[in-house]
């Protein structure tokens, strides 16, 4: 069981700046994010795109913004739990017990949900048949490539992951690459390589096809793929890999007893607390009259929510308002040396 003043769910820009705001008022926190890296939408969806509306930063990319936020919170040595999803939140007297999909447990008087539009997860095949094979013969990422050795693997997708794995697995497996159109969107060099391997008979490519049916009782025997023109082809297959990028899923958050409005959480605008005492929601995931889904709004919300956490974390103390420029207290938390 990990004890902390605040558990922050989500390491997007909002969660990151909130860590800073918690740090300067002397609260500690830990952060959980389902992605394998820090930065939320900025790093997953648009690392190279420029952002022009961060106050006092005329232009920076999603990745630069993330790196700057990480730099800004360095003094607090915050622990990040990546590739892990918060599943369960339960009240236990005056604190919350939080469980993750990897089985970690936290105990905290406060939770700040900075979960964006939900956790990033792989997009899946939406055929019903696929569910029963998921994790056994249908995968959306590769954990152990050895299981594919000398087997027939059908790979779906047209981006870099699909191409890279087609190339890699073609060394030891029979690979079929299936994509819904003729153009692949992966790197040119990978597209070239895949086409060469096709010529050498190492990879079979089927374009303008999509998965239509999976045949097999206990194990997959065949798949049926459907062409744009409606015709169907049967392919023998042992394993299926689907690479369709990531999608944001609200997921377990709907089960935590919070007042929701479509896919967002209702909060007050004084400290962004939800209907549950000690659970706050900030950034894209919160809603209130006038909400703007902008990074700058998330920063403001995080500053107020952090202060809202103080009374639950330090019930016997009073929070003092202090400036970073003039407060010795704050500066020592930031690790600023006296004559800096």
């Amino acid at each position, binding site marked *: 069981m990990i004890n902390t003043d605040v558990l922050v769910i989500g390491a997007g820009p909002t969660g990151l700046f909130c860590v800073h705001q918690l740090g300067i008022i002397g609260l500690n926190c830990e952060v959980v994010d389902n992605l394998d890296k820090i930065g939320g939408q900025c790093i997953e*969806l*648009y690392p190279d795109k420029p952002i022009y509306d961060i106050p006092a930063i005329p232009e920076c990319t999603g990745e630069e913004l993330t790196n700057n936020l990480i730099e800004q919170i360095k003094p607090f040595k915050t622990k990040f739990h990546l590739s892990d999803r918060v599943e369960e939140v339960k009240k236990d007297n005056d604190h919350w017990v939080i469980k993750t999909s990897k089985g970690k447990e936290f105990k905290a008087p406060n939770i700040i949900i900075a979960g964006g*539009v939900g956790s990033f997860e792989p997009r899946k095949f939406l055929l019903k048949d696929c569910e029963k094979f998921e994790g056994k013969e249908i995968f959306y990422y590769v954990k152990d490539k050895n299981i594919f050795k000398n087997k027939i693997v059908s790979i779906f997708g047209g981006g870099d992951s699909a191409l890279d794995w087609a190339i890699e697995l073609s060394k030891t497996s029979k690979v079929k690459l299936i994509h819904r159109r003729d153009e692949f969107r992966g790197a040119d060099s990978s597209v070239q390589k895949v086409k060469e391997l096709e010529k050498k008979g190492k990879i079979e490519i089927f374009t303008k096809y999509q998965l239509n049916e999976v045949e097999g009782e206990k194990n997959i025997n065949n798949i049926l793929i459907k062409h*744009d023109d409606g015709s169907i082809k049967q392919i023998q297959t042992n394993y299926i890999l689907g690479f369709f990028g990531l*999608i944001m*899923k609200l997921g377990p958050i709907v089960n935590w007893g919070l007042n929701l409005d479509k896919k967002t959480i209702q909060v007050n605008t004084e400290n962004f607390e939800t209907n549950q005492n000690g659970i706050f929601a900030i950034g894209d995931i919160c809603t209130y009259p006038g909400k703007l889904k902008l990074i700058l709004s998330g920063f403001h919300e995080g500053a107020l929510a952090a202060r809202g956490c103080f009374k639950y974390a330090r019930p016997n103390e009073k929070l003092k308002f202090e400036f970073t420029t003039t407060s010795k207290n704050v500066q020592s938390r930031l690790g600023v040396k006296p004559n800096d």
Partner: protein
Amino acid sequence: MPKINYIEHGGKKHTIEVANGLTVMEGAIQNNIPGIDADCGGSMACATCHVYVKEEWFNKLPKKEDGEEDMIDMAYKPNKYSRLSCQLTVSNDLEGLTVQLPEKQA
């Protein structure tokens, strides 16, 4: 204001007046039409605003910009009449446009 027809997967039709300049996605969201999620708010990063455009309309629409086809790769059951509704800006030329909503967005 141009009228846009949204046909749900089950066949239910909604005819909505959408102001010029809004997108077909925004028209659906503002009028609570089920079947369009638009998780990324129109920044062409989610493909959950996917629609099928009736054949007779498909060729009249402005062509897809860079990146739209890549994003459609990730949509649920795309076909050759697939578009992202956040990339379709309503104007008088679109009066009577009919879009079919997929069974699900994700």
